[in-house]
């Protein structure tokens, strides 16, 4: 009797979350798969079944490949650099230094601020005629650049801004990882005469692997979903579409060109890429991280 009562109660407890997730995540995902097999502009009531045509069209869509390439470029620009810089800063912050919480809170500030608001500031910084970046570079003899208006520099400019925005998150996560490494490991290494770099290489970096694994996963996923700063900084996908990332192109197809089926097909390709990445990462990286204590 009791356990039936407990079962009922448990279902009541999960019901609110379950209904939301079912209605707004699971059903729409399946429905998206269906839409991707149709040609539909959302306004007309006519939906034409086209099978896999949307997926095949994607293969021949140069702009889609360009956006995919841009997304990879963006991800490879942001993730490794952000990890490297945040690791160095976290290591410095972890040296029982005075003012730790002050430093940490400033590095973290961009994380809590709205991307739209800070993007406005970066638009101003990158302004080719009156922007402060060109002014400062001019002081050290570098000529003015077009930044967001240049097909070559627009992407690096967006990357730089994105690293600035997310750095604090990685630093905080790394600090947790560093604080979880037992002090004894270092004292033992010191007895054996290990130098600082030897300790970094043989203790800190290997023991931080689970943290790094977590950060890579989170950063990769958020890089692949990047939309807001593209929308704000480089309207229309930047000069020569040089900053048109996959989510931006998807948004344009769905809500500017009203190609719902085509955009849904694109969303599924994005899903498959992320799914494969996660699998690959588990296969190759997770084997190397089992140093947990």
């Amino acid at each position: 009797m009791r356990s039936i009562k407990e079962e009922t109660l448990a279902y009541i407890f999960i019901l609110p979350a379950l209904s939301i997730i079912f209605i707004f995540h699971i059903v729409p995902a399946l429905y998206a798969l269906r839409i991707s097999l149709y040609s539909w502009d959302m306004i007309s009531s006519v939906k034409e079944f086209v099978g896999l045509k949307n997926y095949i069209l994607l293969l021949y869509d140069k702009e889609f490949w360009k956006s995919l390439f841009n997304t990879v470029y963006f991800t490879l620009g942001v993730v490794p650099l952000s990890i490297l810089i945040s690791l160095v800063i976290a290591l410095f912050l972890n040296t029982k230094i005075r003012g730790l919480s002050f430093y940490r809170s400033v590095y973290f500030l961009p994380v809590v601020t709205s991307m739209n608001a800070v993007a406005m500031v970066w638009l101003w910084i990158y302004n080719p005629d009156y922007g402060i970046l060109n002014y400062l570079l001019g002081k050290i003899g570098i000529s003015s650049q077009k930044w967001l208006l240049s097909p070559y520099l627009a992407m690096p400019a967006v990357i730089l801004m994105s690293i600035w925005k997310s750095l604090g998150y990685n630093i905080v996560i790394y600090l947790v990882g560093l604080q979880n490494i037992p002090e004894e490991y270092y004292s033992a290494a010191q007895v054996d005469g290990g130098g600082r770099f030897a300790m970094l290489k043989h203790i800190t970096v290997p023991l931080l692997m689970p943290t790094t694994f977590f950060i890579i996963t989170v950063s990769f996923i958020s890089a692949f979903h990047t939309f807001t700063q593209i929308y704000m900084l480089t309207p229309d996908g930047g000069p020569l579409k040089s900053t048109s990332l996959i989510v931006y192109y998807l948004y344009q197809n769905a809500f500017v060109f009203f190609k719902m089926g085509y955009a849904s097909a694109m969303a599924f390709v994005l899903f498959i890429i992320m799914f494969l990445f996660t699998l690959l990462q588990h296969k190759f990286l997770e084997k190397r991280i089992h140093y947990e204590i």
Partner: protein
Amino acid sequence: MKTKVFIHIVLFIGIIIMSFPFLWMILTSFKPQDEVLQIPLKWLPTKFEFSNYIQAWESASFGRYFFNSILVTVITVFGQIFTSALAGYAFAKMKFTGKNLIFYVFLGTMMIPLEVTLIPNYILMKELGWLNTYFGLIVPWFASVFGIFLMRQFFKTVPQELFEAAEMDGCGHWSYLWKILFPISTPVFVSVGIFSMISTWNSFLWPLIMTNSTNMRTLPVGLTYFTLEFSTRYHLLMAAATMAILPVALVYFIAQRHFIQGIARTGLG
């Protein structure tokens, strides 16, 4: 000693770079229009033009944007904490048929990118007549798998004996939750709350496609339209950006320990 100085110097340079955009934003926001576009560039405004703020505030419905953002964020945060706590408890401490299956399906939905569900959800909102309403902005985000996961991990660490002792005193699951478990779960509530607060307050793509009138725009969407309209009047743009950032920055600096620990805890999953 030398290394300490070196570390401080590096960290300090880092801080200047990190905070520079904010400083430049504030300085620009106080400049008279002609000084903003002056060459050679001037660092400080010759006189502080507070009227930029008034002008920016009056040129768009910022009051309304703030109200919408605060309303949507507060309700979503409490909703997520509530639904996550109940579901997290059921997954951590209760026995029911299909428990593992449902939990894995939940985790699986974390893999589905927002973009996949975007179009069907938009159509659903249209069918329900929820486009451009608070319902549409709030209800789809009333549950968070990540929140459920964090809650479950936390409740799992609470010893079973606590529940057994409460049961001896005649406590059922329901009163155990409210009287004993929830009061000791503040840390995880704060984590889930802060995570959901940051993501809801800053969310952009969904409110962008969902809203089509000034009345319903949230702050990020409002800022976007403001930027389009005043594209080169940077003193107004920076005043607007400062207004948008300042309240968040203040809350953050007052409660920064909670913010950072809250986020740090989410990394342990």
